[in-house]
């Protein structure tokens, strides 16, 4: 590899590596002897002078690319930006199904939503908004329920403290079973939800 090509490769490797790279590591990856690799390192160091925002330094037994110290403040502002905590339509819908029908397993959530839910359920578990609630007696798929963090996020006082489903009209295959479940859980009134008749005692 020419010196210029080697310097390009070294720059790319230092950029990618999350931790410092020792010269021996670089030699192994580049399949080049230490001499040319050292020269390439010096070229990359020179390329990233004070006029740029990055520097290439030897630390802790290796070489690393990092932001220059005087830019710490602006870098911290990037780090401390609030994460995008928006709830996607998929997540919201899955949360709604779990909240009103808990405990409920993935197959049933998927059937109600008409889409594959594995990744959505996984991400809601990771974010602490739902959690495992055991398997049904006699076996079956793991079921899920909402968490304390979910209640806090939505300003609910306790599990099941959900908006009443007034005027809730159900149609489709699962309607009858779901209606019974919602009724048992007190989310809809006893009278089948004819327009204007929902007494909505569910939220109490």
């Amino acid at each position, binding site marked *: 590899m020419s010196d210029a090509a080697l310097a390009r490769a070294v720059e790319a490797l230092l950029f990618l590596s999350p931790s410092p790279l020792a010269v021996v590591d670089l030699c192994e990856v580049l399949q080049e002897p230490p001499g040319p690799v050292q020269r390439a390192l010096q070229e990359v160091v020179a390329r990233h002078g004070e006029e740029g925002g990055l520097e290439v330094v030897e630390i802790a037994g290796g070489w690393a690319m990092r932001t220059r110290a005087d830019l710490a403040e602006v870098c911290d502002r990037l780090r401390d930006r609030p*994460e995008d905590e928006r*709830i996607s339509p998929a997540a919201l819908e899955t949360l*709604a199904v779990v909240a009103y029908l808990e405990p409920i397993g993935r197959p049933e959530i998927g059937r109600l*939503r008409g889409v594959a839910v594995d990744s959505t359920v996984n991400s809601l578990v990771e974010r602490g908004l739902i959690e495992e609630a055991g398997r049904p007696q006699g076996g079956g798929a793991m079921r899920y329920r909402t968490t304390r963090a979910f209640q806090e*996020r*939505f300003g609910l006082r306790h599990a099941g403290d959900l*908006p009443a*489903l007034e005027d809730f009209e159900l149609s489709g295959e699962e309607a009858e079973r779901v209606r019974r479940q919602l009724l048992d859980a007190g989310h809809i009134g006893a009278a089948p939800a004819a327009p204007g008749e929902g007494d909505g005692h569910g939220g109490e």
Partner: protein
Amino acid sequence: MTGMAVPDALAQPLSLDLFEGPFDLLLTLVLREEVDLLDLPLLEVVEGALGAEAGERWDSDTAGELIVLLAAMAELKARVLLGEETDEEPDPDALEAREMLAARLVAYAPFQRAARWLRERAAASAGPRYRRVPMGGATPRPPAPLDPGALRDALAALFVEAPAPSLAHIDRRRVSIPDVLARLRRALGTARDLSFDELVRGRDRLEEAITLMATLELARRGEITLSQPQEFGDIAITGVA
């Protein structure tokens, strides 16, 4: 054959196990000059497209349309092989079904080409590597509270009878042949000689294509005559009195 540019992607060797769907199959077949529909191994086509090895289930309408077409092709093939006369008038229903299939094919073709474009883009974009080292900043602030009413609305949306699928946004771009035929006839009512170029000025390519189809259809019915003095030049349309 002159002036018919076959897109490069269609110049690849024909391999029947490559087809991923009815339009893929049909477009490839009908846009290839060298494939005579009569020469096709029809059984292989059907098996490759609908058999156990097929990648995706075809929707039933499309499969139906296609099977009717393939059946007609099989019958024709048999007659040709037996040396029978084959010049009887085709069934108008079958013709209409084929018109519709053709319209769907023409509407779908751009997406198939877009898919090829995407494939090339993916290949061209495969080299760069991103650093993606997590930054690990300060403890994030608690997220903004959410409205529980959104949960009720989300659940309610699940139990509403879904409206029939609409292709309104696609139909907007579709041009109906009867409409174009009517426009052509109206134009012929006011002038006996028309210029094709004038007729399609300012229209998009799809409309231009359909207008050409309509023009050819009227010529076939003997309502107009066409002449094109120069290759690729304007087409003069003359109404038959």
